């Protein structure tokens, strides 16, 4: 009987320890490997057009997916926290693809460069918004 109680205690402790590790350590430090992730390839103009024509459908296809977006850099900037942002132009001068670069990304780009940006699609405001982006190709 004592053996069963001891085993149960060990099991409960192991479960509690595992849960604590998963929630507070693993989940907090888990880093997504953007470079190795599978992605949907699309060009900036087609992506913007998809959201402008039918946002609900575009959300179903692209929201929270990893995209590899080809386009021409129209703006390079920094946001309020100092993170670098790149905007790729589309055929519509009022809408583009704005990507916030991951802090680990060190490649430099300039306006007019034709590049490919890879990141998570977060939806559409004035621009299609991409997060955790890396520059896949210059």
């Amino acid at each position, binding site marked *: 009987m004592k053996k069963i109680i001891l085993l149960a205690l060990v099991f409960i402790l192991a479960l509690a320890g595992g849960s604590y590790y998963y929630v507070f350590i693993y*989940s907090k430090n888990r880093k997504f490997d953007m470079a190795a992730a599978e992605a949907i390839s699309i060009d900036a103009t087609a992506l913007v057009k998809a959201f402008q024509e039918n946002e609900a459908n575009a959300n179903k296809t692209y929201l929270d997916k990893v995209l590899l977006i080809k386009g021409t850099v129209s703006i390079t900037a920094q946001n309020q926290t100092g993170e670098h942002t790149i905007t790729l132009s589309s055929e519509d001068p009022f809408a583009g693809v704005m990507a916030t670069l991951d802090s680990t990304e060190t490649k430099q780009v300039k306006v007019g460069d034709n590049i490919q940006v890879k990141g998570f699609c977060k939806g559409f405001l004035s621009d299609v918004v991409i997060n955790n982006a890396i520059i896949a190709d210059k």
Partner: protein
Amino acid sequence: MYMKHLFTLLLSIFSLAGFGQQKVFATKTGQIFFNATGGIEKIAAVNNQTDSKFVDQTGQMIFAVLIKGFKFENQLMEDHFNENYMESSKFPKADFKGFITNIKDVNFSKDGTYPITVDGNLTIHGVSNKVSTTGTLVIEGGVPEINGTFKVKIKDYGISGMYIGDKIAPDASITVKCKYL
């Protein structure tokens, strides 16, 4: 000759009235902070891609954010926030549309911190509610920055979940910090 004078008169009236001088300030990288810490564990996130515009003459303003753009320190918490509470695939955006009601008190050509009052409609999770709050509009070198904090009752927006009122505070604090570069 009469027409020429009439044209000059109309032009003068419009100039005096400030016609055509209205300025729209805009940013796509404003910040909105969310904090719903109810217990020991911090439940807080930031969105660095807030899209906002306001008009200097009328005080009309809009803020829009993508729910999936909120970043938590803990990825698992972020997943729960999106899937179990905000249903962000179904309701991907939140926005506020309203007015700075005392915009006339702000002198855009003079640096300073101006108290503002804001009225409008906040839409989260597909539900709209009226919001009235206060904040500041800071002018520094001609660049405006809007700051403010207000509370929202999570349940007023049709958001439910087992930890609301426990680990998750029933009232979430929303802080806005938008610099219109």
